[in-house]
């Protein structure tokens, strides 16, 4: 994958959460107190905005690692 996509996700994450992902693509919600269900929604919006795509609804509620988010974005982007 998808390294460029992961970079986009990591950059969006840092912007929304106000701090870089501590474990890169392996960062999970338990690692970052700011990564709640609500801030996750804004993370998805930020990714949508940066890539100019609409992501599936399931991504708004599913919070895996940032690598899995990037993978889901890749799948959605086709």
């Amino acid at each position, binding site marked *: 994958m998808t390294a460029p996509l992961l970079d986009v996700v990591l950059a969006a994450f840092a912007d929304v959460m*106000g701090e870089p992902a501590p474990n890169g693509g392996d960062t999970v919600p338990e690692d970052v107190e700011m990564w709640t*269900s*609500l*801030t996750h*929604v*804004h993370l998805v*919006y930020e990714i949508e905005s940066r890539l100019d795509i609409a992501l599936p*609804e399931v991504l*708004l*509620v599913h919070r895996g690692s940032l690598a899995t988010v990037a993978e889901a974005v890749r799948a959605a982007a086709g």
Partner: protein
Amino acid sequence: MTARTVTLPAAEVAHFAAASADVNPLHTDEDFARRTPYGRPIAHGALVVLTALAVVPADRLARLTVLTADFLGPVYPDVPYQVVAEQGPEQGRLRLRISCRGETAAVVGLTLDGDRPLPQRLSADSVRTGVPEDAAPRVWSLPELAGADRWTAAYHPDPQRLRELADRLGGQGIPDPLLLWLAGSSWVVGMQAPGRDALFAGLRLTRQDGPPTPDRESAMEITRADPRTGAVGLRATGSGPEGSAVLELRTFVRLPVPVPTRVSVAAHLTPSQNLADRQILLTGGSRGFGAALAGAFASQGATVWTLYARSQDRVQALRQEFGANRIRPLRCDATNPAEVARVIAQLESNGIELDGVAVVAAPPLQNTTLHPDSVAPALEFIQRSLGMALHPLTAALPLLRRDGWLLAASSDAVADPPDGWGHYAAAKAALESYAAYCGRRHGVRTLLLRPPKMHTDLVNSPTARLGAVSVEQVAAAALHWVIGNAGPQGATTVLDTAEILRTTDPSRGQP
């Protein structure tokens, strides 16, 4: 690092509501707040920020250029919170964390690098005051928000009242312009848009260059309105004697939870007279899943004696929808044994024999953490939750026919509690054990219903709604069990998520 413990008295929340004119009922109305996932009134996000700012020295705050706030969880009045200030990674950055029982409720970021200090105090004659104190918050649908044009509104809060409030909370050093901008952000979200059904998720306040203006002007525009989550973004610009600022506001609008109707129930359960002349006692039947269950029983011809505590309007609407002869309200506080005994005696004196008892009522769910200070509120929740079920259940047993049944509304959270729901899962697990015991001792069939997340007021948060099943679908699964008369007397059946979805598969047909 600086730390302090703060408690926001309920009276100060009321003072902020009056001073800012943000009288949104989530902060001011017990009944309204009880019907939200928060269960009771919460403090304004802007007031939480204002309180946290008290740890920052006045000379530093005066150099503010950017303030960000993320509201991660509710802040309740009269509960002690910790405010911790940490130096940010860059010079001039400060981060304030507001937490309770190990859970972060809000994070405030400050950039304090301005060359031109904010005025500490605005002179009284430079500020026009007057806010519409009795105004009601606006109510919008999401399409209306999406289509809204930029609009302006007059907003002139009194800095003196805000300053007095800040002083009482230890924030003597907060400059007047910042007080006005924070009050303004609260007023925009709580009263303008999204208004009544708003949840304030965060803000970014950017101070603008330019001289103060004699008259205040506030202009607002919607920058996002997403039907998937109810997320609403706003951009508000304000200028006045305090200077100018841009507010980027992140909010959600709580979309209305559908109320069960004959049509929505019939979509999952064909109306019939399968339960004609059956008498059923139901707790928590005025709202959410209980209302769907009441409607489902009524749709099969049963008479549903519906215990409810407060929601008289909802019960009346239910009677109107499903028939006043089918939905029979009994007002009582289910946690009060004397009140429960009174209504059960009422049934007994009318010669009512019950065919079934369904305990559905549950108190508002407020997340708890694994923290020593969370044990007391968790125990209180468990006691209240069990009391709401066990008082009616035990009182009604003498009226329950030997070929009758018990239904206990549990949750699939028993098997896999979501974060913050440990107390809820514990209460439901205890209810399951007690209900099964009651069934065995009384020799009646017992159903333990473990539904997945349902779309109710209890979970009407922006993302919890996504993927939730309808209350009518789960009610239909329960009715399949009742009508199917499955299992021997004294036996306990567990309907979990997989079984509920299987039994309500449209291809399977109706009972």
